[in-house]
């Protein structure tokens, strides 16, 4: 269903909804996975992002997202300078990612303290994004919902534990997806929720023995 506000909007920093607003959202999502300002970022641009990204401000938009700026924040324009001031060291490379990817795709690797995470995301047009990989796990996340992401041992009962923890706090699940690289290894769990996850539910899931890394990412679209 098309809404009036899909047509008259979004309010955004120019010049391109796919190369600027969408790129910023990929950065914002990646930032959510390290839960704050990263210290180092490697940004790899693929396809049209690599060819015209600099002129469209894709580099600045991604870095702005990494700093927590939304697509309508004028600080996007100065984000490369602001990154240096915030202690974020960024490197860029134009690459050809292996496999099938949307023409507007970036792979971002972030380091913060002991954390390291790699995210691949595509900008689909009109500012919409799709995150397609996190740390090598294939995923499909839009950022249009508050999103719970965690990595856990691939053992039975995790989903039951999570849904119990969420239901106890009245947190409703919009979509969920579990994917793994191999049987019995680790699996990534993605839950898109109707509202931001409540703190007690987050703590209860964090306390599940099989859960390794867990992040609650705010709605970014």
């Amino acid at each position: 269903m098309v809404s009036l506000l899909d047509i008259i909007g979004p309010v955004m920093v120019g010049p391109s909804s796919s190369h600027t607003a969408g790129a910023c959202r990929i950065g914002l999502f990646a930032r959510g996975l390290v839960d704050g300002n990263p210290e180092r970022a490697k940004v790899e641009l693929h396809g049209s992002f690599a060819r015209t990204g600099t002129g469209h401000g894709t580099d600045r938009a991604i870095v702005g997202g990494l700093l927590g700026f939304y697509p309508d924040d004028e600080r996007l324009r100065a984000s490369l300078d602001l990154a240096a001031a915030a202690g974020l060291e960024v490197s860029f490379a134009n690459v050809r990612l292996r496999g099938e990817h949307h023409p507007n795709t970036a792979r971002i690797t972030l380091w913060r303290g002991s954390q390291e995470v790699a995210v691949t995301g595509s900008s689909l047009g009109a500012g919409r994004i799709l995150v397609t990989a996190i740390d090598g796990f294939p995923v499909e996340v839009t950022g249009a919902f508050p999103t719970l992401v965690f990595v856990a041992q691939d053992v039975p009962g995790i989903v039951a534990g999570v849904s119990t923890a969420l239901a106890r706090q009245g947190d409703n699940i919009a979509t969920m997806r579990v994917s793994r690289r191999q049987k019995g290894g680790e699996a990534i769990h993605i839950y898109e929720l109707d509202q931001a996850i409540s703190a007690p539910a987050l703590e209860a899931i964090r306390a599940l023995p099989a859960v390794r890394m867990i992040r609650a990412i705010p709605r970014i679209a």
Partner: protein
Amino acid sequence: MFESLGDAVERAEALAISLGELALRTEVEEGLRTREEVEAALARALEVMRNAVERGLPGDLRSVSGLVGGDAARLTHPVGPLAGTVFTDVIASALAVQEVNAAMGVIVAAPTAGGAGVLPGVLLGLAKHRSTTDADLIRALATAGLVGAVVAVRASLSGAEGGCQAETGAAAGMAAAAGIELLGGTPTEAAHAVALTMQGTLGLVCDPLGGLVEVPCVYRNATGGAMALAGIEMSLAGVRFPIPVDEVIDTMGEIGRSMDVRYRETAGGGLAATPTGRRLAKERLVQLKGKGGNQRPQQ
């Protein structure tokens, strides 16, 4: 929202309300937001549009590549035969917004960032010469949204899919209907204004130099505004386009689907592929790479 502008016009006339009022009621009935929320979002869009025109008119902005900027300011002192009329105010405002967009300023994508100058250009240009309230302008934005929603479903709003006819062309159609709403015209007049405007943008290709939203996009927003004014003027004078507006919109979609990929935002054809277009793009992109290299801390 509606999938046929013809149906929307019929419904609005049956209820004896404007297309903008119908759009606002329909948005609320579809249950995503309250009337207050929709109006507040459109009021914010209006404020951003006003700020973008104001930010762009002084002419001190340059685009990221340096290819565009400062032309809106020239139109603040027009010397041609239309100086001082709605016409020059519309094209000055459209240029201003699109120059702000190219310089990474804040705009409202309406329907897209590349076509963001047309609607504020037409509405705020008209408003300068009429006494209008914010409520009138908000209803006009809703009218534009309704038209854009129909185009999104029946054709396309993406230059990569349908060429520039789907971006500045669609924006011009939206602006024509919005202009009729602002001037107190009927839903039928709005529909004919859309048809009369979009018949003139059919086939328009998307051929930006270097793939950047700069040349010709900035200027095409101004000519898009001019097309909308022509549609508005003809419709208010009683001109009725013989092909129904939904069929004009379908035609835009059909032309877009059969348009060669060179003319769909790839910089492979049109003005982008001219000798000068290629040279400018190359010079500017080389310059950008040099500039970027200095700014980026290396590992």
